[in-house]
């Protein structure tokens, strides 16, 4: 029941996000200009046949002769069936473009999230169990540093140190096999993961510290259970909520980060596709990416919700 309710809420979110993006394209300025650039405003007589065909096709693909709401509805219907249209700038099916680009980005994002979680959880447990002592204080400084450095500065720093100066990692993205893919994506993943590690560590540490003050922890200690057992078996699970919530919400921020990282390291993912599309004013691609990203956001957040109810049996009732 709870999941269904959340799912329908999330579907509403997808509708709203796509609506906004579509409305932006249609209402901010002339949609044809947004789609095709200057040729939309040029005198039809000056255009080539191809360009005239583009004009007609754009009108049809985006239902520009229909009223706005109908236009949105029909466009959304196309999206659902996987018809993302065609780029008018480089004549590629948007669907193919996305299909080529998305896997790399997903790989990078999962890579970064895994790195972040694998490092952040033990680190947070360590610092929470030694809260306010030396190791914890030093950790706070480190995690602040990790949060303070913007991704665009971090990529430069990492690239300079590990690819230019010490030349441990390749300077280019190498997709020849899985090993070199993992290896060449290491620096990009670290750049993406750094702020995540710090965020997760800080959230989990805070929550763990307050959980460790709960009575049921004292009860477990009074039962003579070992410190390790108390930390991992009693305290960790009820403390994961803020971290998990941010994990879900961060999906949006992660896309932003991967745009920077892909652009800088020359990784052919959708982040780079978006930047390229924006630079050449290629609106169909931008729209498609917005749709995909918002769907991704929703899927991840629904998964997080399912995880919630697994982590805490009370969640189902509180719906």
């Amino acid at each position: 029941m709870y999941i269904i309710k959340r799912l329908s809420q999330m579907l509403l979110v997808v509708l709203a996000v796509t609506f906004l993006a579509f409305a932006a394209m249609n209402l901010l300025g002339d949609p044809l200009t947004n789609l095709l650039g200057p040729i939309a405003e040029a005198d039809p007589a000056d255009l080539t046949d191809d360009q005239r065909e583009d004009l007609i096709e754009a009108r049809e693909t985006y239902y520009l002769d229909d009223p706005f709401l109908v236009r949105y509805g029909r466009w959304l219907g196309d999206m659902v069936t996987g018809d993302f249209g065609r780029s008018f700038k480089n004549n590629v099916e948007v669907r193919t473009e996305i299909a080529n680009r998305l896997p790399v980005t997903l790989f990078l994002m999962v890579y970064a999230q895994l790195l972040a979680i694998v490092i952040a959880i033990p680190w947070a447990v360590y610092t929470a169990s030694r809260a306010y002592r030396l190791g914890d204080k030093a950790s706070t400084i480190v995690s602040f540093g990790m949060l303070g450095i913007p991704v665009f500065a971090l990529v430069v720093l990492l690239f300079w140190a590990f690819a230019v100066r010490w030349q441990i990692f390749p300077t280019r993205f190498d997709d020849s096999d899985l090993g070199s893919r993992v290896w060449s994506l290491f620096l990009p993943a670290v750049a993406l993961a750094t702020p995540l590690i710090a965020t997760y560590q800080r959230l989990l540490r805070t929550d763990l510290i307050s959980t460790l003050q709960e009575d049921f922890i004292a009860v477990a200690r009074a039962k003579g259970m070992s410190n390790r057992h108390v930390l991992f078996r009693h305290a960790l699970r009820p403390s994961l909520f803020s971290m998990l919530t941010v994990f879900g919400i961060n999906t949006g921020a992660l896309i932003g980060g991967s745009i920077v990282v892909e652009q800088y390291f020359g990784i052919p993912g959708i982040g780079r596709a978006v930047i390229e599309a924006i630079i050449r004013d290629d609106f169909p691609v931008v729209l498609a990416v917005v749709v995909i990203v918002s769907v991704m956001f929703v899927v991840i957040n629904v998964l997080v919700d399912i995880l919630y109810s697994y982590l805490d049996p009370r969640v189902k009732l509180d719906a």
Partner: protein
Amino acid sequence: MADQPLLELNDLSVTFATPAGPVRAVKGLSLAVAPGRALGVVGESGSGKSVSMKAVMDLLPRSAQIDGEILFAGENVRAMSKDRMKHFHGVDIGMVFQNPMTSLNPVKRIGEQLTEGMRFHQGLSKTAANARAVELLDLVRLPKPDERIRQYPHELSGGMRQRVVIAMALANDPKLLIADEPTTALDVTVQREILDLLDTLREELNMAMILITHDLGVVSDRTDEVVVMFRGDTMETVETSQLFDDDRHSYTVSLRDAMPDITQSRDDNLEVAAEDAGRHADIPHLRDPEKAIIRVENLVVDYPAGRGVFRAVDRVSFDVYPGETLGIVGESGCGKSTTAKSIIRMPPPTSGRIWYEGTDLSSLSAEELRRKRADLQMIFQDPISSLNPRRSVWDIVREGVEIWGTSGVWSDARLVELLEQVGIDPKYRDRKPFEFSGGQCQRISIARALALDPKVLISDEPVSALDVSVQAQILELLDELKEQHALTMLFISHDLAVVRNIANRVMVMYFGRVVELGSTDAIFENAQHPYTRHLLSAVPGLEALGGLDSIAGGASSDGSWLDSERSAGQRSEEVPALVQCGPDHWVAEQ
């Protein structure tokens, strides 16, 4: 005693390092419990009673420095190896904590929490441990134990959870049970059940017990010996039977005197109570409608709950006369607060009518109602939460005057006078609430309510968050102010002894309905309804105080009415009518 003591503390001190310098929470505590005996440790908050037991259990933060000797059956606890220490915690001693709602891990099944200690310390297999868990739950009288072990804590009530916590403490057959305020968070009838259970188990299993509590009544019923603590110092150690003797330590005596005495009736019972003229035609227990300052008829308050509604208050009728104090008592969730607060439409009633001085409040517009509110003021349970932390005392007390403009009744000089009346030195008027103690905050809250010169004061559990000595001061203050300001008071409380001391009339509520209504003496001396009698009989320390006439026989205080009511699961459709059983005494038909 010839036996070697099971647990012995010799000159135990606990010092906390704080930014403001070291704070000595326990100063030289010495005590001893023999096998099978029950020791009470009594004190108000800050007395060090819990800290000392946490020192025994090694549950204190690292900033705590422990001095002195802790011996368990002659063995020095502080010199134990890590492994021996785990065994000592897990097997030799069992501990029960104050709040059952937070003592169980919310994300783990009951069974897992019960068995992990056994599996760890006794190396039991999963099945053996599960079988033992069922046994334990049966031992603590939890019905359907084999289903319980698969449940999560939130599926159980507070009393049931505390039974689980007790079962957990008993899992490895401890020789000593330390119970830290085990019933403070529970309703009085549940409190009695849990304390009875602890008593029985102690005998069955031949355990020693240390019972930590703020309530002299609780220890007086349940222990052999009592240690009285105050601000980390031990005041005295005394056989429980002599606790109420005259030659006790002055602090013990003052603690005893501060306890509201449930056997003592007020000396100023109001005449209005006896008047019988002009009864309400449909609701006979409403008396003279002309004279009532507040009259409530068939009040219903529903809260949305899931898909349906929960009826918090079900067709309640009562009246209040000028100058009297009506006590509303009952256990948590019985609707006593909601009933009183819906008079000022917080929350607004779902149906029913409320008259104030002859005006039907439901007929008023929002603005007219807001104006009426100056007459109907309120004080709250939590003294800290009821004051805005960012405003000074003066701003808080002056707020009402500010709202109603300069035409208000109170000049600054009178507000200063009011602060003095409630016992706050006006020179501290620029301080913020956090600089005051709980009792002082409650005084400020009272001053704020009185600044508008109200006619009616609704007091919602005003003393239940306070220590017993502070509680006595606030009650006395309220009583005085009631005289000075000619107030009518609705006093909501779960504490029967407090109500006996302050109320002229009492209304007993159960599950959203009135079960008994009458003059304070009638209710306490001659309770008719089985629920009222059950409530009264559950009051701790009653025997030491000489008992109450109404339940002296104990005939119908066995809770059978409550049991049948609970097992029915829901209320009857009809509200039982109140029938007269004395000059000013009405009881619900059963």
